[in-house]
């Protein structure tokens, strides 16, 4: 560790992994409810399990992004963090607010939670992914502001690199766009239109800047390739991200009451959204091939290559599959969407957070890399989780294709619930793949506790 204050990243990473485990457990509950309809009913109905599953995902990724920023910004800026105490304070605020919100979901009926938290004063609840009580949303804004202040002051007072400036741009965009979560008009079309300014412009916009900068940072460290080369790639990748992704928002504006010209804008621009992801894959493999050093942390290199490939497949290829308006007319809001959502989030965002954790955690624990025994287990967990996610995606895609045909495309469309029964086999297979994912996740957690093996002692000043 080059700067003492980087240590504040550690609790963020630990919390991220803990919440990740919770997210997967609720994912398995939901998967089971798909085939065993009254499992845990009415104690934990599907909507509650889903809210916990998706909200935990968002929160743990945010913990991961913040941990990544606290780790890499001091090193890039070549100075200590502006205020490590503020970082720790915000950690506890965010963790407690997150825990209380999830407990609220689980222990109080949602309508009761809305009443309890005064939703009628400023109604923002009950929209997908933005289910948090308004007071939690305000808490998120406060944490984000404090976090940005801390990171911003560190960067302003230190060395400015492309990596930390892109990171700061991404994080600032994340915070600003979240403000649209407070806009909830009675007009459903307007509500949906601006809801996407949070959801789409996050995951297909500013989050990709965060992804790109973390990937660039790790590649600089593990390959030793000249920073100039890597930063040039980073610029081109994020340029393509925003050039395609901003107007690409239009692929959500086909069927929600917005003008039909969005079918053209959305189809053309979102069809190009795979380009930056493809470039990211080429970039990662090129840098590793041109490496000027053999970094002992092979697991981190594997995660970095893995995230580039899986983001391209999940966000790029699986996104393209159903993004063109004439195709989306039939696939919109089916299991095809679910398939894409799973692989895209895993490939792009779960894996980039696991990449930076893999690189940073040994350093935070005073080693350059974990012992090879620990890394081998971590790499097994990589394959278990990644391969099972591929199968989850394939099974959901199969279910989705059948659903589209039976419910939307055939001459005698069947009702939703009848179709669900017909595709049950694929839901069982998806659940099975989910169990394998959980096994992989358990292996991942255990890899932090492997004792013995050859140690890679921390060089006081690596890279």
């Amino acid at each position, binding site marked *: 560790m080059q700067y003492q204050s980087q240590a504040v990243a550690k609790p963020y990473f630990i919390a991220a992994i803990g919440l990740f485990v919770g997210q997967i457990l609720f994912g398995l509950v*939901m998967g089971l409810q798909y085939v065993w309809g009254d499992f845990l009913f009415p104690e934990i109905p*599907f909507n509650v399990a889903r809210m916990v599953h998706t909200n935990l995902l968002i929160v743990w990724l945010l913990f991961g992004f913040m941990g990544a920023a606290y780790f890499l910004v001091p090193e890039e800026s070549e100075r200590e963090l502006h205020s490590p105490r503020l970082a720790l304070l915000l950690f506890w605020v965010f963790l407690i607010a997150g825990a209380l919100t999830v407990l609220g979901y689980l222990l109080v009926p949602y309508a009761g939670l809305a009443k309890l938290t005064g*939703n009628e004063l400023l109604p923002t609840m*009950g*929209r997908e992914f933005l289910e948090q009580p308004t007071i939690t949303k305000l808490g998120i804004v406060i944490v984000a502001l404090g976090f940005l202040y801390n990171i911003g002051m560190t960067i302003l007072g230190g060395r400015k690199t492309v990596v930390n400036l892109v990171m700061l741009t991404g994080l600032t965009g994340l915070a600003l766009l979240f403000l649209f979560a407070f806009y*909830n008009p009675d007009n459903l*079309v307007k509500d949906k239109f601006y809801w996407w300014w949070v959801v789409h412009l996050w995951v297909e916009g500013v989050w990709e800047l965060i992804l790109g900068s973390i990937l660039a940072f790790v590649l600089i460290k593990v390959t030793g390739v000249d920073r100039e080369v890597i930063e040039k790639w980073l610029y081109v990748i994020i340029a393509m991200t925003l050039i395609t992704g901003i107007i690409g928002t239009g692929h959500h504006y086909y069927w929600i009451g917005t003008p039909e010209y969005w079918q053209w804008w959305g189809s053309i621009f979102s069809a190009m959204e795979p380009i930056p992801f493809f470039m990211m894959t080429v970039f990662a493999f090129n840098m590793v091939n041109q490496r000027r050093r053999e970094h002992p942390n092979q697991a981190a290199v594997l995660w970095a290559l893995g995230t580039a490939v899986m983001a391209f497949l999940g966000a790029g290829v699986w996104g393209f599959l159903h993004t063109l308006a004439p195709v989306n007319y039939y696939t919109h809001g089916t299991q095809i969407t679910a398939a894409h959502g799973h692989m895209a989030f895993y490939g792009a965002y779960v894996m980039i957070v696991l990449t930076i954790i893999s690189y940073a955690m040994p350093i935070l624990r005073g080693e350059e890399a974990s012992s090879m025994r620990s890394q081998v287990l971590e790499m097994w967990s990589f394959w278990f989780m990644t391969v099972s996610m591929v199968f989850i995606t394939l099974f959901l895609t199969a279910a989705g294709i059948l659903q589209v045909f039976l419910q939307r495309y055939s001459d005698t469309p069947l009702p*939703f619930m009848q179709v669900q029964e017909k595709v049950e086999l694929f839901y069982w297979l998806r659940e099975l793949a989910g169990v394998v994912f959980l096994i992989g996740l358990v292996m991942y957690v255990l890899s932090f506790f492997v004792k013995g093996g050859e140690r890679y002692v921390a060089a006081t000043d690596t890279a």
Partner: protein
Amino acid sequence: MSNVFTKSMARNIYYGGSLFFILLFLALTFDTSGKTPDRDNHAAISAQVAHGKRVWEENNCIGCHTLLGEGAYFAPELGNVYTRFGNSTDAIIGFIKGRPAGGIPGRRSMPQFNLSDEDLAAVAAFLKYTSEINTANWPPNVQG
């Protein structure tokens, strides 16, 4: 990438490209807000419909259903449920009211939300309003 393509060129593409497409997006947004009123059925947004949207939100209906294709994929699309139920708000009210509190053994079942008559009428009115938004003929058929 070769030396012909320099880092400052890459940076300029990033800044110039982002700025251009942000402005284009804002222009399209401006145009959309001018044109959407022809399609969004806003004339039907009564106090009851607005209350119905609150009921919809505060019971997290989106956690199982899709509405105009967005939401969860566990339960049927409701953007066109009004037409699917024979253009009847009473049928919607009857369905929500009739859900067994303990569920149905082995099957998916909507929870019993114990909504008041006022809330039931409002959420049904909201779903009627939604079904009359011009969605470019989506969904493809009445099954949603």
